[in-house]
């Protein structure tokens, strides 16, 4: 199978700070790939580069066989690459329904949008119950569900999630990861960024480990779970 997304030698900087030195990775259609690493390793920067929100210093990003290097941020979503940003970033004063509409901003097929909304409500029934409620009144976990649902509303072919478990009660994390699994079973491709390495590796097919802007390890997820280096640094064993 050829790669849906392929990243070669990606570098990015914030002023003088080199945030990404050498990031190369691949996501194939239908996979869950996880990118794990400590705080500040460059996970979010990687996703922002892929969304083209952050400018890149060097490297090559290819999505569905086409280069994203010259594609502006607002085109990326339309091409099928959506991101659930770190910290959820829902619109707190808009209702759940309106937040989902915002995710479908680029779309004009009303019927398709309604169908995808129904799908999101199936995935996270609590969102249907709360559809008329302001997003800011939801719990952290529910807000994360809303953020995922909002990204799904653009009908992406690759969904990138930045630390969906951050600051969320364990029970809700489990529910969110279940939803991720279900999305995969429905054929979605997922790039999951996590600090919670154990949970992410249990869920994923393959994984990459990033340290100070460099991919230092990559393997099938079960193998990474067994890897002594990973166990020591990320699994606390």
């Amino acid at each position: 199978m050829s790669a849906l997304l392929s990243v070669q030698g990606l570098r990015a900087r914030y002023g003088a700070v080199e945030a990404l030195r050498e990031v190369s990775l691949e996501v194939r259609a239908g996979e869950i790939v996880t990118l794990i690493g400590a705080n500040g390793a460059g996970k979010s920067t990687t996703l922002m580069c892929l969304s083209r929100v952050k400018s890149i210093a060097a490297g090559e990003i290819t999505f569905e066989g086409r280069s994203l290097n010259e594609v502006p941020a607002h085109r990326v979503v339309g091409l099928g690459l959506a991101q659930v940003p770190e910290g959820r970033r829902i619109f707190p004063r808009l209702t759940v329904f309106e937040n989902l509409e915002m995710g479908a901003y680029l779309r004009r097929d009303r019927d398709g949008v309604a169908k995808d909304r129904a799908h999101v409500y199936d995935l996270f029934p609590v969102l249907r119950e709360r559809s008329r409620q302001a997003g800011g009144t939801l719990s952290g976990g529910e807000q994360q569900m809303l953020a995922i649902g909002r990204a799904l509303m653009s009908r992406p072919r690759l969904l990138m999630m930045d630390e969906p478990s951050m600051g969320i009660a364990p029970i809700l994390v489990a529910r969110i990861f279940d939803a991720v699994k279900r999305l995969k079973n429905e054929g979605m491709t997922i790039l999951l960024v996590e600090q919670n390495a154990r949970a992410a590796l249990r869920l994923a097919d393959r994984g990459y480990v990033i340290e100070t802007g460099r991919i230092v390890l990559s393997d099938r997820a079960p193998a990474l779970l067994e890897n002594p280096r990973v166990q020591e640094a990320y699994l606390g064993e």
Partner: protein
Amino acid sequence: MKSPRRVRWVEWALLAAALAIPPINWFWMRMDPAGAHDFVGPLRQVLIYAVLALGLNIVTGFTGLLHLGMAAFMAVGAYAYGILTCEIYPFQLSFWPALGASALIGTVAGLLLGAPTMALRGDYLAIVTLGFGEIVQDVLKNLDDITQGTQGINPLPGPVVPGYAFNSQNAMPWYYLYLGILVLVVVGCRNLEWSRPGRAWLAIRVDELAARCMGIPVVRQKMLAFAAGAALAAIAGAMMASMLTSTGEPANYDFQVSILALCIVIVGGMGSITGVLVGAVAMIGFANVLLPMLAGQLQARGLVSQANVFGNPNNWKYLIFGLVLVLMMRFRPQGLLPRAGAARAAGKSP
């Protein structure tokens, strides 16, 4: 979706009051010709500033871009109207085509300034718009071959409607015409607020990064907001020039005008159309209608003499403005009529 009922109610009440004021004023003047005060003429300023502030509301209220140079676009509109209508120039358009052309020229000016600056963030944009406001005045002053320098362009024609000629003696027809224009602008702003660009503006204001992640073309949408605001400011400028039969001097469109527009938006409630209308009535109504009327009444009754600078309420204007702003920021920072809680900006029900 609709705006909340309270807001609708306020808007209809404002419109009813606006419609009823001229006959009441006329009746007062008939009953008490010596003591009565004409406030329909000055009230036109409220209508003009409401248009200006609604323009700023698109940029600052909807989209969250601090804009400190609205007066410059008002000047562009006024001078465009002047050059297009005044008999000393070859164009000599009448009111309506000139008003439309002024709006168009304002839009183009907005795009020209917006294109290189919309990628700037926060304070930088505020400084650029502030600088633009100063530059426009200087250009208008120094380009006197075209703009007549500090003289201003005059005389300028008033509006035309079939079967009636507007004249400076009778303010009432102007008032109703300008009220009509304002109503159209309000309806336009309402539609914009619920439109696709309106949703994009809201997303940009609340969380620009999230907006980018939704695929919203942030720079383009900011430019659109900027241009729409410039268009309304230009319309306000053309209305002003037509009413005064002159563009006035370039210094009439100085920083104070931009700040006044900003105060109206802040006092009314950022992003709230009804709030901006209330803000315009409160601020301009107070400064241009109530205070002069009070001054006139005090003098007419011999309570204070013209020579007494402290006795003239007009001279207290900015002190009172400042006080009101400080009190507002302390006790009601969201404005008199803030935008509704969970804004219904994301379009129609399923």
